């Protein structure tokens, strides 16, 4: 037996390494110099940008193209392999983390809680986990990266220390723990069934001809669906979502809605890719879960009056859309799922950014309540426009073309494999979704007093949000507009 020495290609690992190193640096710097705060963010952004640059090489590779490293000698399997979809997810995760940081940019007026470095490093660590998991090809790194992406978020939620924050943290924590237990079991079962530590089609194919080991593999997949389902907040593993979102600070909620989902999908896609050769039946469960998530998420979102909770429930619904294509086992399905996730993340981040800006302008009480958005279009037309674009994109209606194209993309594989029932359920949920987001939009567009607004438009109140927040809003908005004009910019990332 040969000495297993793996070849490391740092360039390929850069997307995962950069944030990790960034985290370390931040902590070191914090130890060295206490009072600095903006520096941490600078370092973090730089590391994220470096990581993002690292993904470029992998973007838009043709189908089958993959950049891999940590390979066993003798052309053996590799523990890290990033194809186009994975690279796209990594890029999205890094950028989303950047937006999160911008949203949580420290305010000089307020006295710092001293936890700046911790927050930054935790965000970076979780991001590193998210990027790493997208490329992990063996059980070990897969589990570690996934947990690396999860645990810090618990801390981030809890860090604010408020009562609601703790409740959210507890909800998140307990679910996270259990689902990690399940994932560990899943890994063990996978190993039992395939006898391989790698999550690859080759490993899965070994099972096909052995009926006795099949159930084990299926059980493993089921456990994976359950464990990942928690992170994607799919019904019935979703219950923590509103609590955590509501309890956490807005930027962290945005992080949960963005980076965590990317990490979860990255992890899921690896397993799906591996078992794709085994055919669709294993994925019926996904169809059921997806349908349940869409329906319950939309219906519950319809009843929320706190915008954060509304966004949380909409996350549940959108998660259903994200995994729906996976019910049809095909490479197109993986692509579609990734594309939908990216579109969703972009729109959701924009929505969160606008909410954050309003929180800083009008105070949390008003900005977190739906009724506080009455007549926003008159007070802050620009923010209203951005919010409207985000909501319409989530609803999948022009001018939010990106969301619409994403829906088209997500439905294609489903229709292609003739899952008519799933398709019809999706159609119904498209309607429910429109109802959810237009409910918000109507409030935004409502005129304060139908008569007076005609005569003399009231001078818009000053927008006293933090510049960094506004930068985040601007970036997300511009990105959404551009990708709505040409969705190929997003689809192209994931290859064809």
């Amino acid at each position: 037996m040969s000495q297993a020495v793996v070849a490391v290609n740092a360039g390929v690992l850069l997307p995962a390494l950069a944030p990790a190193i960034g985290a370390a640096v931040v902590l070191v710097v914090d130890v060295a110099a206490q009072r600095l705060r903006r520096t941490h963010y600078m370092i973090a952004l730089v590391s994220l940008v470096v990581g993002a640059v690292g993904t470029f090489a992998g973007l838009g590779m043709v189908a089958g193209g993959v950049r891999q490293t940590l390979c066993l000698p003798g052309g053996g399997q590799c523990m890290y392999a990033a194809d186009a979809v994975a690279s796209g997810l990594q890029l999205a995760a890094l950028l989303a983390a950047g937006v999160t940081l911008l949203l949580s940019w420290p305010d000089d007026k307020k006295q710092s809680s001293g936890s700046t470095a911790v927050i930054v490093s935790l965000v970076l660590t979780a991001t590193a986990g998210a990027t790493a998991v997208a490329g992990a090809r063996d059980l070990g790194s897969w589990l570690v990266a996934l947990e690396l992406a999860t645990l810090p978020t618990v801390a981030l939620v809890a860090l604010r220390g408020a009562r609601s924050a703790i409740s959210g943290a507890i909800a998140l924590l307990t679910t996270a723990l259990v689902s990690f237990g399940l994932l560990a079991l899943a890994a063990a079962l996978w190993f039992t069934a395939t006898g391989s530590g790698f999550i690859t089609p080759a490993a899965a194919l070994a099972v096909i001809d052995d009926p006795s080991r099949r159930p084990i593999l299926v059980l493993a997949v089921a456990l994976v669906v359950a464990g990942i389902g928690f992170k994607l907040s799919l019904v019935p593993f979703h219950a923590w979502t509103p609590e955590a979102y509501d309890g956490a600070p807005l930027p962290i909620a945005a992080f949960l809605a963005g980076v965590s989902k990317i990490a979860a999908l990255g992890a899921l896609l690896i397993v799906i890719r591996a078992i794709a050769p085994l055919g669709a039946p294993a994925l019926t469960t996904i169809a059921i879960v997806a349908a349940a998530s869409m329906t319950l998420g939309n219906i519950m979102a319809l009843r929320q009056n706190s915008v954060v909770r509304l966004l949380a429930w909409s996350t549940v619904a959108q998660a259903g859309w994200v995994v729906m294509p996976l019910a049809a086992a095909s490479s197109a399905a993986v692509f579609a799922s990734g594309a939908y996730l990216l579109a969703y993340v972009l729109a959701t981040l924009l929505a969160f950014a606008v909410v954050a800006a309003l929180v800083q302008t009008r105070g949390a009480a008003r900005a977190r309540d739906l009724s506080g958005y009455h007549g926003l279009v008159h007070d802050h037309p620009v923010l209203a426009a951005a919010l409207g674009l985000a909501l319409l994109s989530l609803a999948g209606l022009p001018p939010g073309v990106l969301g619409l194209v994403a829906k088209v993309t997500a439905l294609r594989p489903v229709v292609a494999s003739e899952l008519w029932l799933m398709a019809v359920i999706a159609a119904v949920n498209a309607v429910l979704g429109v109802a959810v987001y237009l409910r918000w939009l109507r409030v935004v567009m409502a005129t304060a007093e139908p008569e007076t607004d005609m005569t003399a438009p009231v001078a818009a109140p000053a927008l006293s949000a933090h510049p960094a927040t506004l930068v985040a809003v601007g970036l997300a908005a511009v990105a959404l507009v551009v990708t709505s004009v040409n969705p190929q910019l997003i689809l192209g990332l994931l290859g064809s």
Partner: protein
Amino acid sequence: MLLLAALAIPALTGTALILTGRDSVRSSEANANLVSLVASVATAALVVATVITRPKVDYQWLPSLGVRWQFSVDGISAPLLILTAALGIAVVVHARSYPPHGGSPTTFYGCLQLVEFGALATFLSRDAVVFFLSFEVVLIPMWVLISRFGDSHDLPARADASGRFVLYTVLGSTLMLVGILALVHSAGTANLDALAAARGAGLDRSTQMVIAALLLVGLGIKIPLWPFHTWLPPAHTIAPTAGSVLLAAILLKMGTYGIVRLVIAPLPIGFGALAPVFAAAGVIGILWGGLACLVETDLKRLIAYSSVAHMGFVVLGLSSGTTAGLQAALFANIAHGVVSALLFFLVGGLKERWGSADLATARAALREVSPRLGLALVVGFAASLGLPGLVGFWGEFLAMYSAWSPAADRPEGFMRVLAVLAVTGTAVAAGYSLRVLRLIWSGDRTSPAHVDAHGGEWSVLAVLVASVLVLGVAPGIVLNTTSKDVSVITSEVSR
């Protein structure tokens, strides 16, 4: 290039207007009207040029999904394009007489422009997915028009109407999307011309039926086909005049147009199998809508129900599967576009004058106090009851004829029963038309007096009345345009 310009102008104007809607209303009212008037006229000119030169545009857009920007004009879409462009001007001109209230005028005109853009793109697009996207473009602007600029007497009703409209339509269009994707996947191309040329080759009957059913339900909601019509009356009742006009005259046509493009041409077998059901729904719609009009007391609702009836004739013609039937349907499309536009402009003006569109309250007889409105009303309802020599006649008569002698693969006996029922519908139409005339046109009341139509309103009404007459006397104008492409679809040797 002309074609892209024709699309770009309304799109950009609309967006610009909506984004720059912040200065003082009084000044922006006139400016916005002027801007959008100029834009509409330019668009109309370009559309006409496009229809004449028949250019083709084909750009790569979403290679990942194989979606291309493919636009072109053929005989089937040409009349609809002209109609859209013309009404695009008309609504703006008419709005000079009745400035919008309920929100900033720039938003109002911007939404009008966007609706026009969406309609034009729908009729121009040759890519099934792009067709769907354009189909969706009109939703939000129309939703804004209804929910912001609609009748503000009853705000809950307004919210209900706008919500109903957008949700119901989204359901339809998403089902349509599923159908489109299935079609594109199984046929292997998204190009409508290629799909039409293939005539469903390689798709077995059951597949065709499933896809056709999805598409028919999805598009049927837009038409609106009985029993999916209940969103239409509230929407029309609440919507501002311009909204009602665009909704009735253009948006409904997108449904029937889509059926021609996406169902009849690419899925002849599947459609043939479902045609009887489809036709039956259409005929039920004819009678249902007509009867409802006999007792409806809100004028706008009444016209909305009459739209259901008229679109029933279009559906009947489509289902017959013959060239005559398709010609009838396309002509009836245009006819209803002109007539319903005329009636909604008229009724919108009346509602402004009366304060409500309620027929129960006593009004001044139009013939006494406002002869011009009276004339327009008489012509409009005469055309609406399918009076020969006016635009309404040809489509409906030919639809009934084609239902009586349908294509070979249709159940002849059943279709003939439907034809007879449809004929009965024309008598009901006469009933409600004369009812309205007797209620508000004749009589000797001269109070409360109101001003007669003049300026922008009168010019719009006059032009529409004229076109009702011209198209009624010379239907060949439309029929000759469409005939070639129609006979290609039905692959019928014409005699």
